[in-house]
């Protein structure tokens, strides 16, 4: 199984976020996506998940443009996708019915993320880091070989990050694919990295209006760089 993306461009709200992104991730390997805030990491994750249509380019599985990764994807998004008033157990068993159950059951998955004690607790009583771990337990207990992770280490403590790395390594060893967008190093051995940088200004189809000298002073309201003679 090989996940490929060719010449992806992303446009949001009329602005070009990134262009010409290509990568190729095979079973057992990981891609770590880095970049500044707003560089389009989450948009790239959403595109691979099929939730966002690329402005250009395409995403394919095993080189076959007819086959889309859709039903193989497990998503750990920025928003956890957990219902606050349901318990951890209810949330996870819902996800297993929705996405397909893996060989690992809910108890084992919660044990792996260190949350066995919270199984009967409503999610609203969990901290942000604990919700992140429930979200990780969802990836473990659903049968989705391609893990898309948006800031998986966000809100996790140091010990939990080491645990996360271990679980990600194990998923890769079992032949899974991981695409993770992150700010902090996750410590995965030989992962490819993809750095998203904003496209050069001339990459846009149209010149942004604020490049026009005449309106610069009014628009930038003091943020404009000082000019000689002022």
């Amino acid at each position, binding site marked *: 199984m090989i996940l490929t993306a060719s010449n992806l461009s992303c446009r949001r709200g009329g602005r070009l976020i990134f262009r010409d992104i290509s990568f190729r991730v095979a079973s057992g390997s990981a891609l770590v996506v880095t970049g500044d805030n707003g560089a389009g990491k989450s948009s790239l994750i*959403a595109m691979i*998940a*099929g*939730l*966002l249509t690329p402005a250009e380019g395409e995403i394919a599985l095993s080189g076959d443009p007819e086959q889309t990764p*859709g*039903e193989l*994807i*497990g*998503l750990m*998004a*920025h*928003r*956890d*996708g*957990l*219902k*606050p*008033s*349901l318990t951890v157990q*209810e949330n996870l068993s*819902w*996800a297993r*019915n*929705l*996405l*397909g159950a893996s060989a690992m059951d809910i108890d084992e998955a919660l044990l792996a993320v260190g949350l066995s004690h919270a199984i009967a607790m409503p999610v609203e009583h969990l901290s942000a880091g604990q919700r992140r771990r429930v979200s990780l337990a969802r990836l473990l207990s659903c049968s*989705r070989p391609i893990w898309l992770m948006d800031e998986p280490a966000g809100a996790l403590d140091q010990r939990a990050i080491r645990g996360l790395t271990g679980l990600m390594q194990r998923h890769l060893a079992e032949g899974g694919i991981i695409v993770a967008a992150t700010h902090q190093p996750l410590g995965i051995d030989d992962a490819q990295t993809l750095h998203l940088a904003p496209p050069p200004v001339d990459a846009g189809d149209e010149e942004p209006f604020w490049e026009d000298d005449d309106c610069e002073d009014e628009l930038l309201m003091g943020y404009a760089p000082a000019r000689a003679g002022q």
Partner: protein
Amino acid sequence: MTGALAAILQRDIRLALRQGGGAALGLVFFLLIVTMTPLAIGPDPALLARIGPAMLWLAAVLSILLGLDRLFQADVEDGSLQQMRLSSAPLELVVLAKATAHWLVTGLPLVIAAPVYGLLLALSPVAMLAVTITLLIGTPALVFIGATGAALTSGMRRGGLLLAILSLPLMTPVLIFGVSATMAALDGLTPFRTPILALAALSLFSMVVGCAASAAALRAND
């Protein structure tokens, strides 16, 4: 796929019945309108019996509208819509499951409560039966039309007003056919069959169109 849809249906019912879920909201609102009507109009049984079916229908439309704004908004906010979009079931059927669950916890209780509330409006037994049957056939149309409005406004913080403005004009034919079918059953002069068939057609039509339109709106939101 059936398992995924059953899971969505079951979870939405459970969420609605759990504390803060708002399943009782519509029912209580319905009761408020119905109990206030005789107080506002005066205790004239003949007058109440004449306008009763229309009052019940109006109250039902408003109560259904009341709970609709959170139908998709809550799932968009907490990210569970993204998870549902990754399931093997197409988004149109996800919408069908969610709207059906919504009807079961908000529409069906109104249908069941209608004859009881009809007592407060001095309805005759025939009128009670007629209102109950027309509500049973007509309320699914209200929910599916409202679902489209709810999907369109799911990304907005205060979309409730816009939802009402978008949905009410489309709900008006349902209200008209619902009340005219009830009246036809009462006076015995006009045929009952025609408006009730039109009402059933409206329900089936809005079920199909509403699911497709809501799914398109949810996809466009991202």
